[in-house]
């Protein structure tokens, strides 16, 4: 079972829904599968809020505890992924508010500058492109970075909740997402122009 390949996103949500149904039917091992399938996703969603690693682990844990306590309030098992990411976002937003962290934290900045060694030789080109993408995403505004990261890891993005967290009108989320991606495209074009 792939838990880390994002292009397998659709099957990840489907697998999660399947695990959740089995758990509701009394198969306790299915909860393990659900946790292993979606914890990597929840981590990404929470980290988008600029929380440090300890706080992020804490929020992810609280999200799962909330699920087992409130599983009976989830009307549509198919929507368990978006229920979890919404819960994680709400909690991450509260914690980031409380600790005054509305911008990316220091360790994000450090990680961005750190050398990432490429894997096998055949991966060098891909790693190079990935480096360039990573560096370029870092040039986007914190709000763009956060919005794109949240949406990239959401099964059914909840625009109303995201709008509240980012203090933006609901109607502007779609256009802003488009503008952020366009900005990224421009920056990539500019950066690759510089290299030639």
């Amino acid at each position, binding site marked *: 079972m792939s838990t880390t390949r994002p292009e397998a996103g659709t099957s990840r949500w489907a697998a999660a829904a399947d695990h959740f149904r089995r758990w509701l039917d009394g198969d306790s091992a299915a909860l393990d599968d659900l946790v292993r399938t979606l914890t990597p996703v929840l981590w*990404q969603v929470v*980290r988008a809020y600029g929380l440090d690693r300890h706080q992020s682990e804490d929020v992810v844990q609280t999200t799962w*505890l909330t699920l087992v306590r409130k599983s009976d309030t989830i009307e549509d098992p198919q929507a368990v992924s978006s229920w979890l990411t919404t819960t994680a976002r709400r909690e991450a937003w509260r914690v980031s508010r409380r*600790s005054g962290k509305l911008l990316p934290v220091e360790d*994000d900045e450090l990680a961005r500058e750190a050398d990432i060694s490429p894997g096998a030789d055949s991966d060098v080109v891909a790693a190079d492109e990935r480096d360039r993408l990573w560096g370029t995403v870092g040039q986007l505004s914190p709000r763009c970075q956060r919005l794109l990261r949240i949406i990239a890891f959401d099964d059914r993005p909840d625009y109303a909740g995201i709008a509240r967290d980012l203090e933006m009108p609901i109607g502007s989320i779609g256009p802003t997402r488009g503008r952020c991606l366009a900005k990224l495209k421009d920056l990539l074009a500019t950066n690759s122009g510089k290299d030639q």
Partner: protein
Amino acid sequence: MKANVKLSELAEMWEERDPMPTDLPDRVLVALALEDLDAEHEMLHLVERSKELVGTRSVAEAVTITFAAGEFTVMLHVSPTAPERCRVDGWVAPAQPMTVKVVQPGSTRTVRVDATGRFSLSELGVGLTRFVLLTEAVDGEGRAKSFATPLVELS
């Protein structure tokens, strides 16, 4: 290089560059196993975690962890004492009579909070631990409140 970027490529990039700690799912599962689903705990949230060196020659570090829920705060000072052992000095605010349950896989210890809001546990095993704090029954209402921390790693 092509300039169009798909969200799935961004997702892949973030998972590669800022992956979750590999043991996070295991820790979540321990937390779920230790959760008493019949209890109605108010969840405490991590506010701060800071490290300090114990003595100049020691490599062991003491950690201060602060949790809060609304007006209620608990601060835990964890210092290593022997291999695989630590001491926890706790302080709750506002100070009130409480019982602290220290839940670890396979064992639970209980300690009372004193009138100044302090409690301490010595010779505690290291590892994944959860603290559950219970207030005494409130007059009239007759209902005690309980607060629970998320799972924390004592070391």
